[in-house]
């Protein structure tokens, strides 16, 4: 067992090194306008993704369930999905490429944080053996990935509207476009969050006959979703944009982190099995 844990932790560390190398290359490439360096920063990302995939599959085989129980599994898979979501969206929307200066560090921070938790084996409670649970968790993770991209653009907007914006900021699209990207990726996050919440209620109904139980995780997830709904409606109907929208998004993003990682510690419920 110790040997298996050692292999898993070593693979995660290797992935961290890859992502750190990618972050350094990427940020320096963007800031110092070295396009070749920035382009090559994706080599260690692909390597890191490969190593992390091996680590996740290896641990999956050992514990006998997907990466959604122990904190180390949850954070590591969140990091993996955030990176994959970014790479997939970049394929369709090449203009989001510069969001890498936020996405890469977030990824390595998540996986580095995962390593600090004990990766002990957590057995799967019987109610967790449902495909709806897998969908429920997967869509929340995808939502987190899209929200990280929206976070990047909200931060960019605030930086670009600084009195003295840095020279590398010139490479970013104009503030209106940045604002629009933040808006749209929040929309993606809102939809994925909704699908995650809905899949969760189907899982609950299939497992214990109640599709909504008002436990802290469910309630805070609904609050977060409504808050993103307020953000989207304010933008659409009241033409709210710019700094206020960026700060409002950052508030919503923090709320989403609380919902995902803190509320499972708030009370006893089925969600209390997760991330403990």
């Amino acid at each position, binding site marked *: 067992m110790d040997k298996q844990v050692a292999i898993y932790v070593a693979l995660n560390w290797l992935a961290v090194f890859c992502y750190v190398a990618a972050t350094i290359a990427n940020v320096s490439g963007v800031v110092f306008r070295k396009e070749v360096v920035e382009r090559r920063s994706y080599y260690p990302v692909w390597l890191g993704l490969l190593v992390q995939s091996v680590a996740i599959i290896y641990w999956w085989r050992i514990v006998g369930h997907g990466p959604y129980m122990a904190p180390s599994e949850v954070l590591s898979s969140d990091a993996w999905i955030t990176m994959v979501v970014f790479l997939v969206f970049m394929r369709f929307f090449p203009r989001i490429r510069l969001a890498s200066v936020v996405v890469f560090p977030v990824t390595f921070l998540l996986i580095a944080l995962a390593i600090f938790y004990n990766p002990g084996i957590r057995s799967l409670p*019987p109610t967790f053996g449902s495909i709806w649970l897998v969908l429920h968790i997967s869509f929340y993770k995808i939502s987190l990935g899209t929200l990280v991209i929206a976070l990047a653009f909200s931060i960019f907007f605030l930086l670009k509207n600084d009195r003295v914006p840095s020279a590398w900021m010139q490479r970013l699209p104009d503030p*209106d476009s940045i604002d*629009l990207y933040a808006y749209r990726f929040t929309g993606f996050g809102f*939809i994925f969050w909704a699908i995650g919440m809905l899949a969760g209620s189907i899982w609950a109904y299939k497992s214990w006959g109640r599709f909504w139980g*008002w436990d802290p995780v469910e*309630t805070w997830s609904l609050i977060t979703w409504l808050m993103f709904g*307020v953000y989207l409606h304010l933008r659409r109907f009241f033409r709210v944009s710019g700094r206020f929208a960026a700060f409002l998004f950052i508030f919503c993003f923090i709320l989403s982190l609380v919902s995902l990682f803190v509320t499972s510690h708030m009370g006893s419920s089925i969600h209390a099995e997760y991330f403990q």
Partner: protein
Amino acid sequence: MNQFKRFFLSRTTIIFLIMSALTAVTLSALIPQSFLTSSERMLAWQTAHPFAERLSELFGLHRIYTHPAFAVILGGVTISLALSTWNQFLAAWRHTFNPDRGISNGECFSVSGTVADSCRTLAAKGYYRLGGTAEEVLLVRNPWGYWGNTLLHLGMMVTIAASLFIALTQQRGVIHLAERAIRHSSEPLLMEEHGLLAKPLLLPQALRLDRIAYSFWPNHGVRQVASTISFPGDSGTSETKTVEINRILTHRGIRYYQGVEFGHAFFVEVTSRTGDNRLYQLQIQHPETPDKPSYNDFQDLLGDGCLVRSKYWVDAERKSFDNVNPLLTLRLDCRGEEVGQIPIKVGEKGSIGPYKFHLRAFAPWSRLIVVNLSGMPGIFLGFFIICLGGVLHYFTTPREAWVCGATASKSKICWRATKFAGFYQDELASLKKTLGCVENHG
């Protein structure tokens, strides 16, 4: 009617309604709700927060979801959603089947070739002809994207309506049954809940719990729990079925779910000082590990105001769950003081104070959740419509191209993305290149 519609569709009303719903849900997360919190915990919270307790009492904040104000918010949201869905349906219908002539806020440019040539090129790029004449044609890529918002709001409306219907008509409860015990249909359910328009749930027939099977992971976590139930019929025959976690049993319209709670029930005969004999069934949850006991308290079990406290190990030697040889410890507390305690195994006897205890037998017990509700297909349909609407709205933005003849050999194209225009500048540039743009008109 118009004023009514204008009020419910005004952006201020919509934001106010969403903010009100958000405030209500946030308050419910911060203030313990009486339907979710035990009376002991509620009392403890009230003692710890006297000011908040006064406010909660004044405004009914401890029962937000049954408060008339919440019903008003929910009603307002539903009306607003319904009107908004209808308006958006009309707009989507007009865009799809009766589109406007020309495009406002678009970018116009000239390309070489006739209108028919440009239409052919656009069709090859995934644009569909939605209207126009031989000289002026409207082509749209992803025309189904017009329906995204309609479906998104329709889905929410269907989900809210179905949830409301379920909340009003559902019946549910819980049965704790030991192996080989029979539960008659007239007995009330534990933790019984029913909607405002429903009566308490009565099972259509008696049931007998024939067998409980459970298994554990190597680290003692519960792997599976299953109950075999038989339903005795009128003709003397009985129907036997199995329910397990994530495998629901439906029998005569009632859905049975296997709960994760299970353990051992101890049949204890108690003899009082006067010589009265009575058999009690003490159900205790299964311990988490073989070396640790599991506990349960029974207030006023013996009718003397005292508390009977119990704990048990599955294996008296505390080594394994496989060896079921339970050791039960009973303790009697009267007026806050311990009177005494005894450890007993099956067949053994002991005394605490004036009572003699005899552990006659034990058997596994488990929780069955019993549910009778309709309306879930409405929830699932609502979910499906929301997902479909969300995907259409955010992933398939319609891009409109209005093509008209400029000269005999040139045509003019006006193009726009109906939403998130900044996202599609690359597509516009690529389109111009493919069409052979010769001149921009701004």
